[in-house]
């Protein structure tokens, strides 16, 4: 039986899709059998970030409505064969997604994969609730910035009340992934420190992803950052986070971009 993980945040643009792709690819590279699912009906983007946008034939709604078999809708990654994608529908009405239908698809995926990673849409509406509904674990993606932290607090409240686990009285394992972190600005007290965010949200830390140009470079070409440049600072942070998801204990450090002699001479740039 695989684990179901939701990547969520409340606020948009904080890095849910980037993190879903990066963590999914990192787990798959470690030999795990992984499927990533896009729940953002009407605004799908996980296919684009994964570089599979031209291979989409069927989507989650087709499977839910019985128009396609699950095996027909799954897109296997061309770089890693243990990584698959179930895309969202771009054209259908999001009301076509029913909770019973989603439960059935997730149950089927649990049988086939070690990890079922659900990429939540932004907001606290139906789509976000459907994405978190079946989750055993949640990764709350947060930027060190007031509006993102506030929205994450709201989402944590929903994870504790609106998921199937919560309704049964079970706990859902939640952890915090701080993204776009700039250690130099945090040191200058211009940015919330990770400790501040942890104290406010009071959930365990999964990882700290430093702000980096590598993330945009990877999405430009349609590759998870952990595949495009595995040695870059954000990739190393995602690989560590993936290990922690598997239960390994890895010390949390903020990886820095390696700076050459020229970089040192002309001023250090963090991440």
């Amino acid at each position: 039986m695989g684990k179901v993980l939701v990547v969520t945040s409340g606020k948009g643009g904080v890095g849910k899709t980037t993190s879903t792709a990066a963590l999914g690819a990192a787990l798959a590279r470690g030999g795990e059998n992984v499927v990533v699912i896009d729940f953002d009906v009407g605004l799908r983007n996980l296919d684009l970030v994964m570089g599979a946008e031209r291979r989409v034939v069927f989507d989650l709604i087709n499977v839910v409505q019985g128009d396609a078999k699950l095996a027909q809708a799954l897109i296997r990654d061309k770089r890693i064969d243990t990584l698959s994608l179930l895309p969202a529908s771009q054209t259908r009405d999001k009301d076509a997604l029913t909770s019973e239908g989603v439960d059935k698809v997730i149950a089927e995926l649990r049988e086939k994969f070690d990890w079922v990673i659900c990429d939540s849409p932004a907001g606290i509406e139906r789509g976000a609730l459907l994405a978190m509904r079946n989750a055993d674990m949640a990764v709350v993606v947060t930027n060190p910035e007031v509006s993102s932290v506030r929205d994450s607090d709201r989402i944590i409240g929903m994870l504790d009340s609106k998921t199937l686990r919560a309704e049964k009285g079970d706990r859902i394992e939640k952890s915090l992934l701080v993204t776009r972190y700039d250690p130099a600005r945090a040191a200058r007290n211009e940015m919330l420190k990770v400790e501040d965010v942890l104290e406010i949200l009071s959930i365990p830390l999964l990882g700290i992803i430093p702000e980096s140009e590598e993330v945009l470079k990877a999405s430009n070409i349609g590759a998870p950052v952990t595949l495009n440049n595995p040695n870059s600072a954000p990739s190393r942070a995602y690989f560590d986070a993936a290990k922690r998801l598997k239960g390994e204990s890895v010390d949390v450090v903020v990886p820095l971009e390696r700076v050459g002699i020229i970089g040192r001479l002309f001023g250090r740039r963090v991440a």
Partner: protein
Amino acid sequence: MNLFELFRKKTTAPVARDRLQVLLAHERSVIGKSDLLATLQEEILAVIAKHIAVDREAVQIKLDRGASFSTLEIDVEVPLNAAKLARPTGEAGVPASA
């Protein structure tokens, strides 16, 4: 103020942290329940309107959410002829118990 403080720039992250702590303490207690202060505000205004004809625009309401307590400040401007303008309620002469 010593020389060190003089040259140190004002920092913003601690302000962000404090604002979030106050806000979230409030939001966590309120979400899922009805907003106590909003309910109080409505009911207090209803009681006042029962006895005095007040213009709603002459009522100033201020809310300040603090870390350990919040204050609801209601400032009612009572006109001189307020009692005369009051609508008869049938309970005239009975002291308000609210």
